[in-house]
């Protein structure tokens, strides 16, 4: 079975996010004054072959904690979709 994996990585609360802060400061110039909590993260996509959804979940979580994120400063959400 093939799975499409999307990893959404964001900085943990309290970790400095210059890109997010800069975007937030620029938005009022466009007239959008009601926006706050802008944060900039990164998205990583890949295709994974696994025997089941739970195995795909387990493998993705492992890759995330070992490599794709640094748990001291980042957290990740994983979205898995089975490819037909």
């Amino acid at each position: 079975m093939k799975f499409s994996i999307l990893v959404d990585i964001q900085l943990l609360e309290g970790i400095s996010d210059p890109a997010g802060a800069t975007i937030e400061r620029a938005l009022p110039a466009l007239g959008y004054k009601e926006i706050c909590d802008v944060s900039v993260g990164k998205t990583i996509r890949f295709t994974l072959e696994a025997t089941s959804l739970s195995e795909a979940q387990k493998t993705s979580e492992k890759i995330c904690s070992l490599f794709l994120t640094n748990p001291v400063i980042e957290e990740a959400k994983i979205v898995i979709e089975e490819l037909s």
Partner: protein
Amino acid sequence: MIFPGTNCETDVVEAVSSLGANSELLWHGDENIHGVDSIVIPGGFAHGDYLRPGAIARFSPVMKAVTKFALEGGPVIGICNGFQVLTEAGLLPGALQKNRGLKFLCQPAVLRVETTESILTNKATTGESLHIPINHFEGNYTCNKETLKELQEENRIVLRYVNNPNGSIDDIAGVCNKKRNVVGLMPHPERACNDLLGSTDGQVLFRSLLAA
């Protein structure tokens, strides 16, 4: 140590050579470290800083030998990007986040030596001020409360900024591991080893490393 993207290795070679030491450039793709006495991981942008600074360098073939060397007590220092590599490799605690104030910083800094019990400061004096430049975007040291407490209680904060330029927690400029043989610091001592560069305060740190 050279990774693709490292760019301060020649400055380090020049600095240690001026103190009479021999140096050898190690390549990240080699699996051994050719019997050297100590290792310096210099600054730059190892593997383009892709993913996170230091994240990919950790998987370079040479890092297994570096880790073994460090765990056996061999002296290892990481300067700037080298510090980031050492935290990503798990040889030092914490992480380096982007500077408070959103700016890349390239400027002189004044550091205070907090302990002489490390391979980088054994020839220095506790409380001594060192003028050594910084040059980084991700130099804002951070760690969880427990780690910070441990670093403080075990006297493992090796260098602090006198005027914190980047927001580092507890003014931390450099830390060491429990065995005190692995030290990471954001400032560049190799750029403060010649009168022409405005300071020779980096020499005492390299003299310490050579004596370790």
